[in-house]
């Protein structure tokens, strides 16, 4: 049993490290600006920023699914988990300063999803770029 | 009493491979059609927001209804104790499973999001007739599979009657459920009537048997096995009764609609000569699928004529598909009565024209091909067919 546990944990460890390798990851326009300005996005209390980021990376599907059901079915609005906020920060712009769809190849969402071979279904319905400022 | 010996067909002839290749081509065309429809979206089909279920559903529901009917032969033997049908039981179970598989394939591949099939299996709304049907279809597969096992395994033979009874009840429930998909649509006068459920049951008797007769006759013909008149004539008479019963139910359904003034749009379906659905109803469903087969079955001129029986079965199937078309597409084409006593001048209320497209047709035919190819292969690998159904084997007490 313990052996199994060790095997399981080391597999988890491996996957976690694999994901920390975000060298060259396209963070998106606003997220890059935030990072460069030294702001600690996704920072949770009582946790280092790096650990917060790992948590965010590992848990983003659960967080989104949890919130989507609350919003749609119970009308719970606002809060920190909102898909449009993901898109707002993590969408990149092209040379004409226009937003590139976040699910396009090599954009923030698709980079990882391609790598781990998980389909990305959010954007068959959801908007892929930040809404224009009104 | 002679013992029935079941044997696989050889399946090595050129004809066998030609059949498989032909069916395979249909299946490939169907998959191509599905890819085309799902890649582009349903705008490439003739379906729209008013005709939401089109040709694929016509074929799918036809096959599903026929599936439960094909099991009847086995039920007559095991539930009602008619020994002469006993040798046909295995084939009956096989045809039932194959038809259901073909029908469900169409239904699933026409979904807007077939990739989410898993959602349909994990999220159940127990108030939904559709969800009941998902359970009924899956259960049918399991029960008929067990039933076949009981028939194949000699030491389990003694249970086959009991399992046969369960299968019989289940298939009645299944067709009732399929009919209720329409019968419980309270909003639409063209459907809202629980007579739909027994009507579907009777339709299943007739479609399933017609398909079964065709499979039986062609497989014995092509594998050069003897098939006696005793069995064929029994099946022929049974088909005649079922076709008549189906027409009776259609008549009762429409008399009800004509009599109720609120259902005048439904009655329109019968007397609006300009409408395609009216033509399909009279020429296709009633004449081609009802009266001509009855004549072929009962007229003394065709007595003992195998081709006439084959043709009658084929016409019952064609008429059945047309009947489904009139029921499903015709039922949606006429507007719902939103404002009793008022007419809608603009915005809603026209009779919708539906023009099916090639990919839809290919998907429908592909489902039929899946059913036939499944039967073709399985009779090659498992002993479904008795090596002889000559009169002296089928009915030893038969007097020449």
């Amino acid at each position, binding site marked *: 049993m313990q052996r199994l546990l060790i095997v399981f944990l080391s597999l988890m460890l491996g996957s976690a490290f694999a994901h920390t390798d975000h060298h060259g990851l396209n963070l998106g326009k606003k997220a890059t600006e935030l990072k460069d300005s030294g702001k600690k996005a996704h920072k949770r209390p009582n946790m280092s920023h*790096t*650990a917060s980021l*790992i948590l965010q990376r590992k848990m983003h599907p659960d967080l989104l699914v949890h919130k989507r059901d609350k919003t749609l079915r119970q009308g719970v609005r606002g809060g*920190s988990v909102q898909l449009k906020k993901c898109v707002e920060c993590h969408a990149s712009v092209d040379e004409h300063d226009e937003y590139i769809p976040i699910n396009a190849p090599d954009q923030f969402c698709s980079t990882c999803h391609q790598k781990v071979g998980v389909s990305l279904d959010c954007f068959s319905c959801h*908007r892929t770029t930040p809404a224009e400022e009104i | 009493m002679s013992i029935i010996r079941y044997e696989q067909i050889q399946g090595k002839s050129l004809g066998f491979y030609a059949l498989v290749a032909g069916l395979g081509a249909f299946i490939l065309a169907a998959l191509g059609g599905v890819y085309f429809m799902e890649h582009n*979206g349903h*705008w490439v089909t003739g379906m729209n927001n008013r005709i939401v279920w089109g040709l694929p559903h016509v074929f799918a529901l036809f096959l599903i209804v026929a599936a439960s009917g094909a099991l009847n032969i086995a039920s007559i033997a095991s539930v009602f104790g008619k020994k002469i049908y006993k040798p046909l039981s295995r084939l009956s179970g096989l045809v039932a499973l194959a038809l259901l598989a073909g029908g469900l394939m169409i239904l699933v591949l026409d979904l807007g999001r077939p990739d989410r099939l898993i959602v349909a299996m994990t*999220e159940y709304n127990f108030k939904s007739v559709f969800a009941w049907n998902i359970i009924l279809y899956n259960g049918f597969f399991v029960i008929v599979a067990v039933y076949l096992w009981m028939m194949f395994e000699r030491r389990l033979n003694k249970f086959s009657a009991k399992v046969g009874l369960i299968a019989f009840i289940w298939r009645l429930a299944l067709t009732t459920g399929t009919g209720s998909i329409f019968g419980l*649509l309270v909003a639409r006068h063209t459907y809202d009537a629980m007579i739909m459920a027994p009507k579907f049951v009777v339709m299943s008797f007739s479609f399933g048997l017609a398909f079964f007769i065709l499979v039986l006759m062609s497989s014995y013909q092509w594998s050069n096995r003897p098939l006696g008149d005793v069995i064929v004539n029994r099946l022929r008479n049974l088909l005649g009764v079922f076709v008549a019963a189906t027409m009776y139910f259609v008549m009762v359904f429409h008399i009800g609609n004509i009599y109720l003034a609120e259902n005048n749009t439904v009655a329109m379906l019968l007397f609006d000569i300009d409408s395609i659905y009216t033509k399909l109803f009279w020429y296709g469903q009633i004449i081609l699928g009802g009266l001509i087969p009855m004549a072929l079955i009962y007229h003394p001129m065709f007595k003992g004529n195998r081709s006439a029986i084959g043709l009658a079965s084929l016409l019952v199937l064609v008429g059945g598909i047309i009947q489904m078309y009139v029921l499903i597409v015709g039922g949606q084409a006429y507007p719902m009565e939103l404002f009793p006593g008022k007419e809608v001048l603009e915005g*809603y209320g026209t009779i919708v024209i539906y023009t099916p497209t090639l990919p839809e047709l290919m998907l429908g035919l592909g489902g039929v091909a899946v059913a036939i190819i499944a039967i073709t292969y399985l009779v090659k690998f498992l002993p479904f067919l008795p090596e002889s159904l000559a009169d002296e084997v089928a009915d030893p007490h038969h007097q020449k």
Partner: protein
Amino acid sequence: MKKLNRREFIKGSATSTIGVATIASGISLTTFAAQPKETNPVTNEKRWGMLIDTNQLTEENIDDMVDACQQEQGWGGEEHSTGHQQAGWIKKLKVRDTTTGRISNLALMCQHCEEPPCVDVCPTNASMKREDGIVLVDKHLCIGCRYCMMACPYDARSFVHEDLTNQKEHMPRGKGTVESCTMCVHKVDKGEQPACVASVDSDAVIFGDLYDSSSKINQTLKKIQSTQIRADLNLNTAVRYSGV
């Protein structure tokens, strides 16, 4: 690039495990951070409804309502869909009494039934009704079977027949799923009026809480004669009409 040390990793993954457990038990995640607060779930103490007075409602009003709906929700610009394939969340209807010849114009959309047939028939629970009576499609669960469209007595639902891009942020829409009027739930939750209601400047269309006896809609419905379309079906619609 910053290397992750072992200690931090363990802390991180432990917290993430707690996070999963927290989600599983349904307790909110607000313990994590001092972030903007979420609003409370809606309750059945309210029931949102609409009253359309066809005596006051002009044809221009109805056109404005349709335009406002398209603007707000982003439907109507489908490239490939033709004829009845095009989305129609709200329709303009002209109705004539066959005996008297009296003509009324009205806007027809999802009637947000208390007993919605679409919710009854949906095999996957994608069609759903919120506690406050607004009927919606959960497109995360919709498999595109269109049974709800068969069941709807008002022809209120549309199926998305093609790929879409550039949707509104608050209104995800996608190929292969069914959609209909949401009573502008995103605005209602912020305390605003639905777009179509806001586009009519007279009292021809009133929106509000049907249960609240101090609301304008409740008081008007108490005073005047109104009807529900297909009242025979006993669906208790939230959209009421007067003058039809």
